[in-house]
């Protein structure tokens, strides 16, 4: 069970490195009185169906350390399959060539992306500051704020806005676009995964060499 999560990309100001931003954010967490409760990681790998199939489809496999025994598979259409960790093994066998046939899926090279960082708790809030890296190259900073007691985004959005604005600033004036469509329904872990995937896809597109190795 989990509460409502909002994920925002942090705008990195000119002339600052990712590490500096993360450090200042962590300092800010100490100031508002949040306590460190370990690390977290959300990772994503992308597979593509084999070219011999008529329709080319891609599938994203994501893991979230908050749900350590779960594997999320997301299609481009947005459909999410929530399954046990064993699904990874199924995916493995599906990518392997067997008895002269090629596998059903291929892993896309250079697409492994993850957000990794510190996890903080402040009363019933969980705040995560993750630095995103694509194939070990730093891409940006993602901030996740979770309000655990509530499950309806529409109920607690205004309340979350107050704490979000103090961390990410004006970016949090409106809810994340994915949440906007879900304001009145019960929030599930799959919704978090969809938010992360949206951000990951955006980061992959901005793969300009100038931003690498910051």
């Amino acid at each position, binding site marked *: *069970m*989990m*509460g409502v999560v909002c994920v925002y990309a942090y705008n990195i100001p000119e002339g600052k490195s990712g590490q500096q931003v993360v450090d200042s954010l962590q300092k800010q967490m100490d100031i508002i*009185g949040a306590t460190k409760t370990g690390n977290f990681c959300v990772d994503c790998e992308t597979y593509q169906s084999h070219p011999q199939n008529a329709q080319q489809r891609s599938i994203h496999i994501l893991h979230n350390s908050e749900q350590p025994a779960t594997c999320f598979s997301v299609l481009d259409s947005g459909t999410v399959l929530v399954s046990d960790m064993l699904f990874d093994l199924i995916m493995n066998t599906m990518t392997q060539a067997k008895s002269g046939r090629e596998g059903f899926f291929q892993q896309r090279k250079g697409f492994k992306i993850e957000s990794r960082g510190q996890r903080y708790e*402040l*009363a*019933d*809030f969980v705040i995560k500051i993750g630095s995103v890296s694509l194939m070990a190259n730093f891409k940006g900073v993602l901030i996740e704020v979770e*309000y*655990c*007691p*509530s*499950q*309806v985004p*529409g*109920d*607690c959005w*205004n*309340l979350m*806005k*107050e*704490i979000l604005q103090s961390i990410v600033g004006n970016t949090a004036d409106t809810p994340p676009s994915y949440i906007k469509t879900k304001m009145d329904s*019960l929030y599930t872990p799959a919704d978090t995964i969809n938010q992360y995937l949206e951000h990951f896809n955006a980061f992959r597109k901005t793969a300009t060499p100038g931003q690498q190795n910051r």
Partner: protein
Amino acid sequence: MADNEVERLTQAISLTQKLRTSVTRVFSDLSDGYHISQGNEKASLNVLQKALLTVNDNYSDLEKLVPNLNSVNITAPNSALVGIDPVYDKTPIYSQITHAHKWTNKVHKLADYASAILSPNQLKRTHQGGQPLAIKRQRKTPHAHAIPPQGVDQCISALERLWSDMPITLSRPMGNCAVLQITLSRTLRALIVLRGLLIESVIVKAYSEDFLTPEGKVDLWSRSRYQVFNKVTDMVTAATLHFCHPQMPDLSLRSFLVWFNSYKTLFSAPCQKCGKHLQGAFPPVWRELRTATPQHDGCRQT
């Protein structure tokens, strides 16, 4: 029995007095000296002998009575024993007594202050109007806790129809006491233990939590995983005192639920006093008792 004893005691006292007078007479006569005329010595001796005999008689009378007397315990206060303590100068008893005395004074003073502060706060379980009304009510015995299960069932089913967003389920996991499980909108769940129609305890948990023990029974004790709901539990428990009314239990339960219903906006309503949602990472967890307006715990106290 006791009368007998008292009688014997008074007898003994009078006998002692008699003995004393006779002995005094002997000695006073002896000290005064006798006027003895010639040949009258014998008479004088007789007088003395008679006096001594009276003493003897009185003494034997008293002696006869004494075995019948029970020893009387004189229960003196402990402080009286101080006087017979031979080394009382060396014992710290005096300073200890003064110390205790000082403390008693202090406690008395503080109790005075406390009662002065508490008296304007009406946190009583009984509402008493004017004096004559209060006397009249005192005579009625409160029956809120002794309502038969059918009465409780009726009352709850009537209450249930009042709110569409607050389903109430009634169960009796431990005999006669009714346990209400309330789901308030999609905000929270509450468990209310009733004795008759008297609210015994209230526990508030998140919408995502349940009131089941690992064995699948109703869990009456555990608290919520989330701090905000533990705060709400404390607030609501305090409010049950305000709403309690022993003479009109159904009304008190009903007004409590009307008030409790306002918690469905726990996360969405801002504080009426400061206009903000968060205060120290908590939403407005308090609802004003009369108007049910949301307030932060901190704003409520100012």
